[in-house]
């Protein structure tokens, strides 16, 4: 028994999303465009390069057989949307290149009706997972960089006569009250000490 409100996942809404297909003119394109239209996406075929507004696209499909780095406005691996590789030749060099662009999903040619919807959903999920991880890592880097501040704040509180345990508890209480991170609380505390010191030295 699972109350519905607790469900996290839903059927993603793909209707009206924009997809760019970076592929030379080929019968494969018709099948892909047909299927994307059936799923409800607005698909646009582009070749040889992605247009200036490519950053606005929700998905980019790209040809692994013929495409190269220069056709993308972003550096390999830095696409701001899910990428789906269209693979014909399974030559290791081409697969390696597709991987360098961090394709989130792939479809093997010849392209038929099957596999496109699942590729869209897998790519979307992988891309969001990757983006969440990047954000989490960035946040952790900031935390690590602020470790020194936490140590200084704790030391200050210990100098005020608190035990190490109480100092930690105090810092955590400040963070909770002000609804900020521990690191931000430490920063505020340390800044406060500096401000008081500065005021004292000025007076």
């Amino acid at each position, binding site marked *: 028994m699972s109350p519905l409100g607790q469900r996290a996942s839903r059927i993603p*809404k793909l*209707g009206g999303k924009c997809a760019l297909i970076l592929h030379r003119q080929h019968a494969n394109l018709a099948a892909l465009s047909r299927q994307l239209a059936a799923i*409800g996406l607005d698909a646009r075929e582009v070749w040889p390069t992605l247009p200036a507004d490519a950053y606005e696209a929700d998905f980019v499909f790209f040809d692994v057989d013929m495409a190269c780095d220069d056709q993308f406005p972003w550096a390999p691996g830095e696409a701001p949307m899910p990428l789906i590789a269209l693979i014909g030749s399974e030559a290791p060099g081409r697969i390696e290149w597709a991987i360098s662009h961090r394709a989130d999903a792939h479809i093997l040619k010849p392209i038929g009706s099957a596999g496109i919807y699942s590729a869209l959903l897998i790519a979307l999920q992988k891309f969001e997972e990757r983006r969440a991880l990047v954000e989490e890592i960035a946040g952790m880097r900031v935390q690590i960089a602020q470790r020194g501040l936490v140590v200084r704040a704790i030391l200050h509180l210990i100098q005020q006569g608190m035990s190490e345990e109480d100092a930690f508890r105090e810092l955590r209480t400040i963070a909770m009250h002000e609804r900020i991170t521990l690191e931000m609380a430490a920063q505020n505390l340390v800044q406060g000490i500096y401000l008081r010191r500065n005021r004292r030295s000025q007076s």
Partner: protein
Amino acid sequence: MCRADILLGYIGLAEWQLCPAFPEPHGLAEVGFFVFGAPVNKIVRIGILFSRSGDYQIVANASYNGALAAIEAINADPGRPVRFEARERDPQGRIEQYGPLCRELLRDDDVQHIIGCTTSWSRKDVIPILERHGGLLWYPCPYEGFEASDRVIYTHACPNQHIVPLLAYIVPRFGSDAFLVGSNYIWGWEVNRVARDLIGDVNGRVLGERYLSIGDVDVDRLIAEIRIARPSFILNNLIGQSSYAFLRAYARLGQEDEHFTARHCPVVSCNLTEPELPAIGPAAEGLMSVGPYFANPACRDATSPSSDHAAAYAAVVMLADAIEAAGTADAEAVRQILVTKEFETPLGLVHVDRQTQHTALPVHIGRVENGAFHGVWQSESAYAPDPYLSRPGSRILPGGSRLRMVS
């Protein structure tokens, strides 16, 4: 007999397989002869692939009868140039039979069009074979959506034509605490999945979700769970004997506790049709179902006994009309011309959507009274198909307002 028939007879072709745009490689080019769209009496073999025995034979036989009735009507119509010859295969409800029998029809019987399949499981099994042989499946059953094969013409309802309008009708009237049941395969899983999202949108609750294997009739535990959960309605996606056993047991529960009656906690479904009612018996009273068609008295101009029958009948009529318009039975030519025309069928005047090859269909909701469906709601016009529920408005109440809970 026109010149074309004489010549075809002369070169030993018993059946018409010609096409101006797609000439057959039967040595016709050698005699320097082509038929340029001239209406000629021609026999087109079509495959019929329904399980006439097995667990879901009642529904499959309804579809089978619809296809055969349409073939008979077309063959008896002197105004039609096309004649059909049915080549039948019976998978007997065994999933592993569909692929080989489909291949036989396409390869050995040389058909390009097959009317058939009931379960999604079987449809998904034959699609790769249709792709390999260039055949078309005319699929006349409701299904869970999220598919648009160019090898399939879908003539029954997809989710925006069944589960969405059904819940739009049920939730405001009975509440949004649902219990979802289904047979343990893709139909039940996916229709219930869509239902969970829709119910979630109105802050409703899914109090339970349970599945039985196809053919499993041990429903006691399911009934016990429903008794404890006390939902405001039950969405039944069980099929065949499991469904009938469940419905009979639920009717018994209703005799013990009035909450579990159609008045307070109805059982609703997207695939219950008329031919199943005798198998359920008196327990069918009050059941509600959604479909593109119900037989008289719930539906106007009822010429078919059920939507299974009507959708299979419609498929054959659409195929005949398309062959006549294209001047050929070639699957690709039929596919191309099909989406440009409207067809007069037992489902009404219908057309096939170019992008998805699904049929635009009216929506009817019926309730069983005295052993027959009586209409309680119907759409003003046909609903354009949206198998991926991706078009604007596809996940909201028809008429524009979102599903609202009034309980």
